[in-house]
């Protein structure tokens, strides 16, 4: 069962092609990774899928509906949410409030009730707070719930963004380099978290550099290089694909060619 289908998606910026024409599908409840060296076009692809950029060509189909070019808030209402590589946490709110903010869609907009402090507002606050606590427990941030978001560690901020994105009750979660800048321990925690998320039935599409993380948890991998998709398949297959090995051999990414094959097995 496909939750997301990307067909011939491409983006040009002026005379520069950032992504040529990429196609793939994401299965419900599965973990799909998009990997590739720097500059391959992964982030642009992500931004097109999540409505930040309007694609130059191609289609994005979410749950059978064509959502190409729709604004992010509409996509969120349809069950897609995401995190950001260069974290966009809400600094002026607490950790708990950040996650509660993610409950916006469930809360709905009831301005008058909120302005006057009517019981409805208190109820929505309560429900959001409970759910936010639950999500913070899920990502392991429960202890710092009332601290200001800006006080969290880098790894903590990454997990906070995931909790916030989960608050929207997505059916598809886009993770933009969730392990970037994390050490080995943090990366292990993140990948364990992602697996747990996928187990709850949420489909995960992630963009990543870190081969270990990707190979370990993904059911399916898409490899991009030089604005194109060059390979696709289960991790083992992709790791042994000569085109992928060459891409990593020649690109100077953090894993060497041999390393790709070795780590996938190890």
């Amino acid at each position, binding site marked *: 069962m496909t939750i997301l289908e990307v067909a011939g998606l491409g983006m040009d*910026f*002026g005379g520069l092609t950032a992504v040529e024409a990429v196609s793939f599908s994401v299965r419900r409840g599965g973990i799909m990774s998009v990997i590739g060296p720097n500059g391959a076009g992964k*982030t642009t692809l992500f*931004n097109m899928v999540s409505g*930040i*950029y309007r694609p130059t060509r191609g289609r994005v189909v979410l749950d059978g509906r064509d959502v190409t070019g729709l604004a992010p808030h509409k996509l969120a209402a349809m069950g897609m949410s995401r995190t*950001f590589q260069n974290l966009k946490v809400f600094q002026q709110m607490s950790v708990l409030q950040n996650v509660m903010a993610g409950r916006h869609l469930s809360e709905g907009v009831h301005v008058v009730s909120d302005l006057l402090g009517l019981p409805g507002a208190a109820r929505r606050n309560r429900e959001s707070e409970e759910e936010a606590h639950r999500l913070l427990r899920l990502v392991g941030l429960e202890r710092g719930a009332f601290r200001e978001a800006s006080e969290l560690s880098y790894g903590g901020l990454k997990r906070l963004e995931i909790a916030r994105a989960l608050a929207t009750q997505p059916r598809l979660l886009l993770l933009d380099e969730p392990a970037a800048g994390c050490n080995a321990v943090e990366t292990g925690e993140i990948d364990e978290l992602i697996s747990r998320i996928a187990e709850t039935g949420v489909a995960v599409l992630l963009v990543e550099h870190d081969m270990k993380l990707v190979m370990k948890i993904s059911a399916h991998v898409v490899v991009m290089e030089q604005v194109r998709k060059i390979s696709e398949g289960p991790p083992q297959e992709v790791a042994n694909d000569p085109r992928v090995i060459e891409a990593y051999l020649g690109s100077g990414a953090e894993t060497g060619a041999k390393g790709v094959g070795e780590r996938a097995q190890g």
Partner: protein
Amino acid sequence: MSEFLQFLFSGITVGSVYALVALGFILIFNASGVVNFAQGEFVMLGGMITFFAHDAGLPMAAAAALAVLATCIIGVALYKFAIEPARGASVVALIIITIGASIFLRGLAQVVFDKQIHRFPAISGDAPIAVGGASILPQSLWIVGGALAVFVALYLFFARTLAGKAVLATANNRLAAQLVGIGTNNMMTLSFALSAAIGALGGILVTPLTMTSYDVGLTLALKGFAGAILGGMGSPFGALVGGLLVGLIEAMTAGYISSEYKDAVAFIVILLVLFVMPNGLFGRSPLERV
């Protein structure tokens, strides 16, 4: 026809001043990403300082030179004391800072000088020159000529000198400029100094025509800004065209529609540009990295 010509001359004259203000805006914006709301005050200071220096006994030329120099120093001080310390501040914070600076400068002029309206003699007299049924004041020619001279000088600066190319490089891509060894801090100081000098010059040229007082800066800034975004917030050429167009539209509006609301023209131009063609006439769409 002669009426139209009159409005045309008037429009080109004020438009030249707006072009200079617009030029100041884009120089600073391109070098530092800051919209300097105090730009109009540089024009005001040019006129006011010249008047008071001349009033105190200095010959006109010396007073004017002093005014340009003093405004230049104030421009650099603005950068050093108000903008640079606020590095990393949000856009809204920077906006409040430059607005604060503009009001501060206006208040400074109010206190150091006075609240009166002032004027000093035109460069080559006030005898109007008849052209095609309309008349031009000699000062208008000085204004237009002066503005063009500034633009040509700036063009040569950017195209022919190393310092100019460094400024362009910084404007284009600050990180890359730093990587090739360009002192971007100096570039920003330079752009503030240039903008201040250009603004002051505009003020000196236009005062014999429109007079000056401590509070002329705000509307000038608004109109110059209109010219800048009409031109695309990018090249000096855009600023020149944008400023002239704003001046022309304003003069035509004042002449044919209503002179009471002519100051509203700039605001309407701004809105139209922002909604209909956000990149102005010559601007390019900026890439936003997410």
